Structure formats: structure tokens, C-alpha cells
């Protein structure tokens, strides 16, 4: 790891929001009611937004709140409301013993794998100079430091994203349309 020192204030908030996000995620997967689960997931996303800000990605933090918590979760809640699934029901239950066991084994294995990977250290010749994010931020601003690579190196991918969104809109319209002729 890079030998960096953080203030107690920073460390406290980092761990605080980390614990909040994990606790909310656990509450999210264990709630029976879809609405309660969705609200816990919103809580997870808010604490992740706070973590993004702590990690010098202010623009991504704002996007997290606007797009994830604001738009995507509202769509989820909208569908829950539309299908009248808001109350806890028997379908929210787990699937029985075997899948839970398999899930636990897979979960522990994946956790072990990713924990091992997270012990990696940064290759010095790949890494940008220390304090790079802060200087970029000072030079171009929080939005500009994201926008410059987005509209230069990744312009083609950005343009293709618009095609993806168009296809998604068309697909949602086609799927959501009623098939029977007398509906309209």
C-alpha cells in the first residue's frame, strides 16, 4: 500500500459509512417486504455516495445519489407499487436449505478470493503520482476531471452508450406494451 496518512476525522467517517453500508446491505437481503428492502438498499447507496466523496470522486458521489438512489430505485419502487407487491408475502422467503448452504459456501469462497486480491499492492510504474486526484481536481474541477477522459479517450464508448440507452428504451416499450388488440 501507499504509505499515506489520514486524519482521524477522515478515518472515522470512512469506517462509519463502511459499517453503515454493510449493515444496510445485510438488512436489505434479509427483509421480507420488497419496499423495506428497497429502502435499505437506498441507504446503502447513500453511504456509498459518501464513501465516493471521501475517495475524491465528488462527481461520482453526486451521480450515485441522482441516478442510483434517485432514478433507478424509484423505478424499482414504482414497479413494486404497480404490481402491488408492497406487503411481505410467502414469495419473499428463502428457497430452502440447500440453496442457502450453497450461497454460504460460494459467499465465503468469493470473500476469501477477493480479500486475497485486495492484499495486492500498487505497481509503481502504473500508478499516477501521489496527490494526482487532488491536483486534477484543482486544475479541472470535480466534473472536468471526469469529463476530459470521457470525451477524449472514451468518446466512442460514450457514443455507443447512447445506442444502448436507445435500445433499452425501445425494449422497455415493446415489452411493456399489451399484446391483446382490444386493450387500446
Amino acid at each position, binding site marked *: 500500500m501507499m504509505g499515506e496518512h489520514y486524519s482521524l476525522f477522515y478515518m472515522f467517517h470512512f469506517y462509519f459509512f463502511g459499517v453503515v453500508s454493510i449493515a444496510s446491505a445485510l438488512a436489505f437481503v434479509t427483509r421480507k417486504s420488497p419496499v423495506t428492502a428497497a429502502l435499505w438498499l437506498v441507504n446503502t447507496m447513500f453511504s456509498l455516495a459518501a464513501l465516493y466523496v471521501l475517495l475524491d470522486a465528488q462527481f461520482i458521489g453526486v451521480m450515485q445519489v441522482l441516478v442510483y438512489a434517485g432514478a433507478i430505485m424509484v423505478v*424499482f419502487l414504482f414497479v413494486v407499487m404497480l404490481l402491488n407487491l408492497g406487503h411481505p408475502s410467502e414469495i419473499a422467503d428463502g428457497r430452502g436449505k440447500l440453496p442457502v448452504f450453497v450461497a*454460504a459456501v460460494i459467499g465465503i469462497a468469493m470473500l476469501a478470493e477477493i480479500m486475497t486480491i485486495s492484499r495486492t499492492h500498487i505497481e509503481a510504474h502504473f500508478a499516477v503520482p501521489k496527490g494526482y486526484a487532488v491536483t486534477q481536481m484543482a486544475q479541472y474541477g470535480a466534473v472536468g476531471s471526469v469529463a476530459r477522459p470521457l470525451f477524449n479517450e472514451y468518446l466512442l464508448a460514450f457514443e455507443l452508450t447512447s445506442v444502448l440507452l436507445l435500445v433499452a428504451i425501445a*425494449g422497455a416499450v415493446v415489452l411493456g406494451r399489451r399484446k391483446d388488440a382490444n386493450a387500446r
Partner: protein
Amino acid sequence: MLAESLALSAVLFTIGVIGVLTRRNAIIIFMCVELMLNAVNLTFVAFSRYYGAAGQVFVVFVMTVAAAEAAVGLAIIISIFRHRQSVDLQNINLLKG
């Protein structure tokens, strides 16, 4: 903070996987997928401090794909619900061989 961020991301991703494997409500499974995408985003942001802002650009792309996936996936769920009156994945076995 890189190791801590990656560990947190691993925990969140694992919680998402466990949710997908143990829940039966299709909407909650979709939300678990969103949680996994969020965990990956955290990894990107954590690495972007050390490897430049390209990681944050990828987060923007992941968010776009997540939005598209949510739109199409929820349209599929609504369409299934119209046919089956249920979003329980136990009842949705049309593609089962």
C-alpha cells in the same frame, strides 16, 4: 484506504451474490444485482485514486448499463406478471429444459 475499500466492496458484492442465490422475489433479485454493480463501482473509484480518472469514467458507464438493465428487466418482470400473476421465480420455469 485502497485495501479497506476493496474489502468493503468484496463484502457488498458477496452480500449481493447471497441475495441472488437465496431470494425468490424477482424484483429483490434485481436489486441484489444493483448492489453488486455498486460494489464494483466502489472498486473502480478506489482504484481511480491511484490510476487516474479513467476509473470514474467506467463508473459512469456502469451506471448507464445499470439504468438500461433496470428498465428492460423491470419491463420483463411486468410482462411476466401479466401472464403469471406472480414474480416468484419458482413459478417462472419457461426456459427450463
